[in-house]
């Protein structure tokens, strides 16, 4: 990855606090066009909060400088919905309110995430969690983003399903020249798909290519304990980071 690719995001002195509690403290990093940056860190390290700050959904101190006019797509970790919510996939895509939304675009959207077109008639609560995650990606792609923020689910999706999601993201990145920032709980994914890693535990613990920064010493610093390889045990309930 040449270092002189265009800068799409520069974060400097970022601090996010809730009440008196500092969730993120004095964070600096940058992202260049075409990067795949993985944000890793233990539960409660501020990963999802970082995404919310990047999207302007939560107040913060410091600087978050996106390239002017850049379009950002967001795939949240999960969606709490009832299985019988009366909302079809087609309607859910239409709710985005994209300009000239059409039946054709709905078909394109589900095809681009490798789902069958019939799924448009299904209820949003009826499909599997893995399918819903793909629909969320399709939803984000409708906004023609240049950057995709992807918050990996901690549970509910089996390992093979997760693997194919990353293959899909990889494919989409090539196809649309996306810059991707993802939150991951799985270091295998990070080794395989990310070009850069940001280790976060309130503060920046490390930043660089996975081969350089994912050393046993760094991992111990990040996650504590003696095991260098972190395994995430998903909990059935969702949790914020």
């Amino acid at each position, binding site marked *: 990855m040449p270092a002189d690719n265009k800068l799409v995001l520069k974060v400097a002195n970022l601090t996010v606090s809730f009440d008196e509690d500092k969730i993120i403290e004095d964070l600096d990093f940058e992202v260049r066009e075409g990067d795949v940056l993985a944000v890793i860190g233990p539960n409660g390290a501020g990963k999802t909060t970082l995404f919310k700050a990047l*999207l302007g*959904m939560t107040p913060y101190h410091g600087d978050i400088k996106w390239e002017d006019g850049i379009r950002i797509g*967001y795939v*949240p970790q999960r969606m709490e919905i009832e299985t*019988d919510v*009366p*909302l079809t996939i087609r309607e859910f895509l239409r*709710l985005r*309110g994209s300009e000239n939304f059409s039946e054709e675009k709905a078909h394109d959207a589900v095809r681009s995430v490798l789902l069958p077109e019939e799924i448009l008639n299904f209820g949003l609560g009826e499909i599997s969690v893995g399918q819903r995650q793909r629909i969320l990606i399709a*939803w984000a792609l409708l906004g023609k983003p240049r950057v995709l923020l992807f918050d990996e689910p901690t549970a509910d999706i089996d390992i093979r399903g997760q693997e194919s999601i990353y293959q899909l993201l990889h494919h989409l990145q090539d196809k649309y020249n996306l810059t991707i920032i993802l939150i991951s709980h799985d270091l295998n994914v990070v080794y395989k798909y990310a070009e850069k890693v940001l280790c976060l535990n309130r503060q920046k613990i490390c930043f660089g290519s996975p081969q350089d920064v994912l050393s046993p010493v760094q991992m111990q610093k990040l996650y504590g304990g003696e095991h260098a390889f972190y395994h995430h045990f998903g909990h059935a309930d969702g949790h914020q980071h």
Partner: protein
Amino acid sequence: MTDILPQLIVGIFISAAASLLGVFAILKRMSLVGDALSHVALPGIALAIFFKVNPFLGALAFLFLSAFGIWALEYRTKLSVETIVGVFFTASLAVGALLIPQLELLEALFGDIAKLSFNDVLVSVGLSAILIAVLLAVHKKLALHMVSHELSSSIGIRSKQLELIYLLLFALGVALGIKFIGALLMGALIIIPAAAAKNVSKSLNEFMFLSVLFGVSSAVLGVYLSSLYNQAPGPIFILVGTGIFILSFVWRALIGRQR
């Protein structure tokens, strides 16, 4: 039949507006809020009677204030809206029951559209039409916000503004419904048709259409039956709505929603 025409017109418009509001109350799982919010109208009615102004205005003023209150509090406390509403608004019912004179109390609690003036009809129809128009204009954003506020705010929808618009529409709907059905039953006018529609709908469009259809048919039957038996239409409306709900529930259990 012609003597109940004004009541039918008012009933149709108000129930259409209320049942459309109900769709979004159910999507947000806030059915209790509507129920309790309707009680806030009572102290407003009491004050209006005391100062000899139109009770509708008193109810509307109190409802708007409460809608603002809920909206402001939701962002300032960690208490859930339902808790706040459950405590303070049930207290309003108590205050209203003490302050409103006996005769008017029954009317405020259960509604009375036996004596509608031409102006009443005009105001009810006009405001209901405005409510429906505004709700339809924001319905996509509102549905998205209620399904996932993370997604809606990620694409720049202003959640706070949207919630305020919704709460004010809700307050307007409740104020309109009080004359028709009364403060005690108003929550049901909003929730029952939507709850029945949810049982049999798979899409948002069906959900909205069926909710309005169920609401309007309950209102028409309610007004018609009440004129036949010389009863207040409110309770009859609720019973008809409950009948539709039970049918929808049975339909869902027997046939499911596979199509």
